[in-house]
């Protein structure tokens, strides 16, 4: 029943306006920085944002411990997290869609195939291959080209395979942690969550290795034509999400170890983080198939 006594409507709050200032400074600062200005505004904004989020989450946790959050209110958080993850799915969909369009339509047409193959006249000699090692500009201008394709690409069956195993395993460990939590076994929860965070960290370590290899040895960069573009944008945004997810799970771990916040029947903070983690894992499976395996 949606009574005010059972549905907690917070009094006035200073958090949102400070969050607004934080996000505004981040956006304005990022634009200033990228346009060649100073980076201070961006970092000030990030610091402000992180601080506000800290206090905001602290406030929500405190309200819950005071018993202000009814089951109905908790359902609002559940809906909120669910739809947030859906919005993230659509963000990745835009980039997967771009990859699909480039491979299915753009490159064959540039290479002279199909209804629109006449665009090949602009890029004479261009051959459609994937991975795209020779860009259209290279096909026309040779060594004078500014956008040069990569010399090599990442082999899916080495680092990416290891990362697939790591991330899939981490989805299992976070689930086991959840099972322990529901049984009230805090120690088991802590250990399995530690394992999950460690797997996330290991994934990120190998991802950095892979990027170093690409940049230093393979000439595979953001600037190396559409292959490098789609490769780094898809895996890069995924990596940022893994980073965020690992931080979220780490905070959940600390909340459990230090403050014993979670109860067997009341731990949505952890559940939300684990949903996010499963989502990041699913995106990786998509990346492994469509970017790495089918891209090699």
């Amino acid at each position, binding site marked *: *029943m949606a009574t005010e006594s059972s*549905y907690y409507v917070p009094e006035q709050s200073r958090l949102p306006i400070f969050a607004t200032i934080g996000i505004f400074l981040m956006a304005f600062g990022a*634009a200033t920085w990228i346009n060649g200005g100073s980076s201070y505004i961006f970092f000030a904004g990030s610091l402000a944002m992180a601080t506000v989020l800290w206090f905001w989450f602290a406030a929500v946790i405190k309200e819950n411990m005071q018993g202000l959050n009814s089951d109905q209110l908790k359902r609002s958080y559940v809906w909120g997290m669910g739809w947030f993850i859906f919005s993230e799915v659509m963000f990745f969909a*835009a980039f997967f869609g771009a990859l699909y369009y480039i491979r299915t339509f753009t490159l064959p047409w*540039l290479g002279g195939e199909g209804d*629109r193959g006449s665009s090949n006249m602009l890029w004479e000699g261009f051959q459609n291959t994937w991975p795209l090692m020779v860009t*259209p500009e290279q096909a026309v201008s040779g060594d004078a080209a500014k956008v040069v394709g990569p010399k090599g690409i990442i082999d899916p069956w080495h680092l990416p395979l290891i990362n697939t195993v790591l991330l899939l395993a981490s989805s299992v460990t976070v689930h086991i942690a959840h099972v322990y939590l529901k049984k009230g076994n805090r120690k088991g929860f802590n250990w399995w969550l530690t394992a999950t965070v460690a797997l996330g960290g290991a994934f990120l370590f190998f991802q950095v290795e892979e990027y170093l290899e690409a940049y230093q040895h393979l000439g595979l960069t953001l600037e190396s034509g559409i292959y490098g573009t789609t490769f780094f944008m898809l895996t890069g945004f995924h990596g940022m999400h893994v980073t965020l997810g690992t931080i979220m799970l780490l905070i959940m771990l600390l909340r459990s170890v230090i403050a014993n916040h979670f109860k067997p029947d009341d731990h949505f903070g952890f559940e939300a983080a684990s949903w996010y983690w499963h989502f990041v894992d699913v995106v990786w499976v998509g990346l492994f198939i469509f970017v790495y395996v089918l891209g090699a």
Partner: protein
Amino acid sequence: MAHGPKPGFTRWLYTTNHKDIGSMYLWFSFAMFLLGGCMALVIRAELFQPGLQIVQPGFFNQMTTMHGLIMVFGAVMPAFVGLANWMVPMMIGAPDMALPRMNNWSFWILPFAFAMLVSTLFMEGGAPDFGWTFYAPLSTEYAPPSVTFFIFAVHIMGASSIMGAINIVATILNMRAPGMTLMKMPLFVWTWLITAYLLIAVMPVLAGVVTMMLMDIHFGTSFFSAAGGGDPVLFQHVFWFFGHPEVYIMILPAFGIVSAIIPTFARKPLFGYSSMVYATASIAFLSFIVWAHHMFTVGMPIAGELFFMYATMLIAVPTGVKVFNWVTTMFRGSMTFETPMLFSIAFVILFTIGGFSGLMLAIAPADFQYHDTYFVVAHFHYVLVPGAIFSITAGVYYWLPKWTGNMYNESMGKVHFWLAFVGLNVTFFPMHFVGLAGMPRRIPDYALQFADFNQIASVGAFLFGAAQILFLFNVIRTVRGGKKATDEVWENPEGLEWSVPSPAPYHTFSTPPVVR
């Protein structure tokens, strides 16, 4: 816990109250409406005569771009969110929005985002000048430096929209009073539920496309550059995958408002409630598979042209169902013509005209003639001005007595309606003719034969603009006083919002009503 608002200015900064936040959204949107309107008047003043009189072509392009961006993201969308904030909790018997602090955050991001967007007018190289659809490579390789600020402004507006939409979904799905089943919800609530779903689905795609632009401009990627194997047409596909659902985001809540108003003043229940719900859902579904009708002339395979042509034409079916239902609701009703009803009837007629010109544009071979002409401008202004703007205005007149406790001045409202109605048609109807005759959009100068119709359109635009001052005056007067409104306000209107006192107390439905 019956208490009123906190005193002082900080009430507005710190508030978690859906009514406060709704009011802020509505005032912000009206301010943006006037700002975007002034830009439209700059455009119309320049187009009053052929040749260059008032502004330089570069600045003219900045005006068309900023007018579009401000009206879409600053005026129409926030106005609907403002109405949702005010009305959805009252319509479903909820004490407030589901996530009140995030609600405040969603609002306050907007003034900051628009300050950032508008500040680009004063930057070196000027504001974005590539049209509100910001096609690459015009918006990447050939863009002014301020494009970076535009991109980040879009990012935080998008964050605001997504949070606002999540809040509305959580409110509708989780906060309904006992007995308020989904199929008993007022249509405004239904249309907003579906709109919120569209927002959550496509705003991230907009974030994706501006991110691709940012990377192409500053970090050397090749998304939209054929030299590296990318494709400028890719931009259009991703943009319109966002863009087409976006135009329904700007019209579905309007359907909900009109479906509330027409039954009240026809004194008959809405005809075909459930078909309205299914029609709205069908339109939302179709909005995801018609995007390429915006780009028929870009060079698509014939199969693509045909698919998008037929899919687009299908939209006329659920839309026709809606128009039929509104007309049938009025049929043999005891109609009276108060201001909200006038705006709603004008909505039904003029939106239908805009829908028909949309059907013409959907015919791919004919679109090759219409594409990028003033016919397109006439079409989307006919759906947006009498569609979105008229319905918002109707909604404001309809619920204003509930919000303020006072009746607005009816004669002034009617004068506002007739001035706006005449002004709108004088502005946009001639654009059909110049468009069919071949006048391209987004140009500061034009061939002599278009002069007469352009002069008429410009006169109409200033009339339409002036009418809005009357609206502002009427609203301010009503907020400050006037004849007291009864709790029901109108004769036997349907909906929980009419069961609370006028003005609606600061907190409504602290105890949920029981819906039979």
